């Protein structure tokens, strides 16, 4: 499946497609990685995840998961030359990726006039609520999954 062009898809896509575009934008901008396409579902391999909560016209949680095996490749260049061994650096990089995905997907869903407050990223805690939208992006050597979950009641 072709990856939508981020420049031409603002407010034209469904929520899952908007989420996919936000992940592609974040990966290219933060990790200098290009997407190869979308996958139908998240592969069942061990993954690290981070979440960012948002409140505003709607409230919820954005979760981004990266397979553990891909972490050194995806974040190695961002982690001070540590080669990916430092857990805090991995958490920070994954958290920032999630922060950027969250900040970029919300205007694509709700429009640029909508203002949201974002929480600091948290790592290692996948939301318990079922996802209302998911996107799994294939990248060289693996994948990155993102999902949006309703706020816990």
């Amino acid at each position, binding site marked *: 499946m072709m990856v939508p062009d981020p420049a031409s898809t603002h407010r034209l896509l469904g929520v899952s497609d908007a989420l996919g575009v936000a992940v592609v934008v974040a990966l290219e*901008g*933060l990790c200098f990685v290009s997407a190869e396409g979308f996958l139908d579902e998240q592969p069942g391999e061990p993954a690290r995840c981070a979440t960012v909560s948002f409140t505003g016209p709607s409230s919820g949680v954005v979760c981004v998961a990266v397979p553990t095996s891909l972490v050194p490749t995806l974040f190695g260049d961002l982690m*001070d030359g540590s080669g990916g061994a430092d857990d805090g*650096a991995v958490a920070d990089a994954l*958290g*920032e990726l999630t922060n950027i995905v*969250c*900040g*970029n997907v919300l205007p694509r869903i709700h429009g640029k006039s909508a203002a949201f407050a*974002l929480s600091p990223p948290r790592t290692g805690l996948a939301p318990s609520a079922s996802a209302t939208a998911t996107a799994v992006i294939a990248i060289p050597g693996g994948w990155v999954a993102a999902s949006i979950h309703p706020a816990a009641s």
Partner: protein
Amino acid sequence: MSLNVLVIDDSATMRRMIGRALQMTGLPIGRIEEAGDGAAGLSALRARPFDLALVDINMPHMDGLSMIDAASRDTQVSSVPMVVVSTEASEARLAELERRGIPLVRKPFDPERLLDAVLGAIGGVR
């Protein structure tokens, strides 16, 4: 003259990326220091002279806008040009920053965008 820059962001990853991007802009960058939240950033601004501060919005302890407000009321540091670097770019936020003459660079960014914003803040031209 080189620019001494303070990068204020709660993510070490992002502070590192901003530092790298600054070095790629071609601007004469001098000292680059980092702070992890608005309170630490304000302390750093008061402790040493800087020519520019790049500030995230969403941070613990003191967010970027509160830090900018506090800095604007402090005659010791109020003249330091600020650039906001954030994922948050609602129309209301953009209008507020524009009214205050503070450029915003939305994450993720490339060095060109950062350069435009920095030049806008320090009054330079390309």
